[in-house]
């Protein structure tokens, strides 16, 4: 479901600076001539299959979910709520919703920047022309992205068990005096979840940065160094600004992925302890399939996620704009 896959992550709308700054400037468009108009129609025809599929298989269910979010009742006994927005009103008093929302934001604030910075640094290291075994490093770091949910949750759960590998190693080396109950405490359970996300997605984002780096003219960096800038400074003041469009793209994608995070919460920590590692999407699933099913309420939750993702995307675009 809400796995932060490529396709589930939100790319950038047209008027985003992402495209604005990177794209080759388009020729000015005069008023449409007849020929132009026919070409435009051909253009619409090109869009048709993809657009129809999206409208049919995403928007139509989305509209139905919107209608559903105005209904109350259990199972199939649904009727329009009185007042219509009562499911949304109800969210304000829902302690579990508040907790899961808070958890999700913690993941967002900690994991997304950390992951993107690590991916950026790794990509920069890999972009060094003198680096040896380049493709080996790249492959190793990307491989986790190919592993499925069940697989990686299982491996992580086994590794972070009380008598698991991680405790054995840390105690063996002497870093820890006694085993840590990783998945049994709020802080460490969230930590393991963030670690899992970093493991799975850093390489994925790195590949995007690596690709972007290859479009940057190395001479700009060399010039900065000749001017006496350290490598770190050259990276920060010369490379990073040029990567901004890609950073924005990955930031928006990851934000969307994290806000819809389900798999890790469900399979890795099972939301525990006491729901303190549960994400909103996991709660949404509980309300729909584990508890006495309340699909009206579940739909309202999903629209809140939608609104937050959209709002954050707008904010990120605005911030991205300003620094230009």
């Amino acid at each position, binding site marked *: 479901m809400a796995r932060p896959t490529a396709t589930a992550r939100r790319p950038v709308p047209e008027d985003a600076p992402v495209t604005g700054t990177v794209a080759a400037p388009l020729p000015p468009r005069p008023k449409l001539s007849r020929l132009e108009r026919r070409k435009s129609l051909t253009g619409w025809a090109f869009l048709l299959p993809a657009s129809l599929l999206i409208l049919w298989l995403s928007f139509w269910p989305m509209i139905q979910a919107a209608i559903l979010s105005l209904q109350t009742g*259990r199972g199939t006994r649904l009727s329009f709520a009185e007042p219509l927005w009562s499911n949304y009103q109800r969210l304000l008093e829902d302690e579990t919703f508040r907790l899961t929302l808070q958890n999700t934001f913690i993941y967002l604030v900690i994991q997304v920047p950390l992951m993107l910075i690590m991916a950026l640094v790794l990509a920069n290291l890999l972009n060094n022309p003198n680096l040896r075994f380049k493709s080996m490093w790249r492959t190793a770091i990307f491989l986790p992205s190919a592993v499925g949910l069940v697989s990686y949750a299982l491996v992580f759960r086994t590794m972070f068990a009380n*008598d698991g590998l991680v405790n054995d190693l840390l105690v063996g080396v002497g870093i820890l005096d006694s085993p840590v109950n990783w998945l049994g405490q709020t802080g460490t359970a969230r930590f393991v979840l963030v670690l899992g996300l970093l493991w799975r997605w850093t390489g994925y984002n790195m590949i995007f940065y690596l690709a972007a780096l290859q479009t940057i003219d190395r001479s700009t960096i060399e010039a900065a160094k000749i001017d006496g800038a350290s490598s770190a400074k050259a990276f920060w003041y010369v490379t990073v600004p040029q990567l901004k469009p890609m950073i924005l793209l990955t930031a928006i994608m990851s934000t969307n992925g994290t806000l819809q995070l389900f798999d890790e919460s469900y399979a890795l920590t099972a939301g525990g302890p006491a729901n303190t590692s549960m994400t909103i999407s996991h709660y949404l699933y509980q309300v729909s399939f584990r508890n*006495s099913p309340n699909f009206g309420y579940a739909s309202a939750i999903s629209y809140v996620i939608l609104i937050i993702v959209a709002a954050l995307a707008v904010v990120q675009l605005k911030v991205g704009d300003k620094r230009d």
Partner: protein
Amino acid sequence: MRTSARKLVALGAVLPLGLALVACSGGSDGGSGGGGGGGGGAEGDNTLTVWAWDPAFNIYALEEAEKVYQQENPDFTLDIQEVPWEDVQTRLTTLAQSQQTGELPDIFLMQNNAFQKNVLNYPDLFSDLEGSDVDFSEFPESVVAYSTVDDVHYGVPFDNGTAVTALRTDVLEQAGYTVDDFTDITWDEFITLGEDVLAKTGQPLLSGQAGSADLPVMMLQSAGASLFDEEGNPTIVDNEALTAAIDTYQRLVESGVLVEVNTWDEYINTLVNSTVAATVNGVWILGSIQSAEDQAGKWAITNVPSLDGVDGATNYTANGGSSWAISSNADVELAQDFLATTFAGSSEFYDTILPGAGALANWIPASESDVYSEPQEFFGGDAIYSKVVGYAEEVPSNNTGAYYYEGRDAVSVAITNIMNGTDPEAALAEAQSTVEFAMGG
């Protein structure tokens, strides 16, 4: 390169067409009973489609039941579909919610704890068992209660969830105890014994998943109490048995008699690796215990401790278990007859699956057979199976209702918070309000 691109495009152009064709054939396929297999079209073809999980247990039992039923009905076949429980629930919800009950199988297995929730929310999914040849008085009352709504029977009990205390006799011996010392005792006595065993052998008696309500809820049921009253209202606050159960659980952990682990895998690991010397769980746990072949002859079972100072406390309870339901899309007559003849009527069947899979009957007449009273070497030559069926009859009933999972999850959260220092009364009040909130709106 140009050629390959052209091929790709040609493929792209042809595929939608192909899709449309397949779509049509697929459509007619579904219509003719490809989906549920049971549906109207398939009636009278002597095949039943079943959803169940666990090949070594439920599915094995189905295969044996099929053989038994075939003795009288040679043309009969079962189409068994392996579906994990969570997916059964997801599918049922999806089918009911989109009103596509035509895709249901004839029979599906359902967790006892989820039975009422599904019947109450989605009556359209079920066919009742009234008018069938199943004699429900031949099953323990507490088990039948899970699948009974408004005095109408919807399920044939199968997987036995009767709780047992399984103990390592070799460890007990080191501490100077026998199984008898653990039989018909209370939890206070259990803790005292456990502390002594811990002191003498260094081994805790129990292990359990942190944040799981399994053990406290078992204790609760052993006293005939529930998280809900008969009308389905939550009774988490001012619930004497629940308070006692949580207090007991807390003392078990604090005394070190129970070690908490995080996942189910770890819990099983504590048993097979001899980290702990006992466990209290549904009888099905014996399957995992027996996977450690080196421990053969070192285990014994007895009944579970009772809560101290609680009215109606007993030494019997249950955890888990599941029952067969007949869907609204079923060949009802055939499905009823199949279940009545096998799961609710064949000693021969139960005699096969007990040694074959350790699958214990809920059907009381089965326990009269010799197979049930055969001594089990793994358990020191004790006839454990007839013993457990005996326990089953003593288990008090438990009200589940439509909001059982909400109640159980809220209590889990409360227990975790109590273990972290929250005042029990406050934690339970919060659990009560969480459940009340979930039930409103």
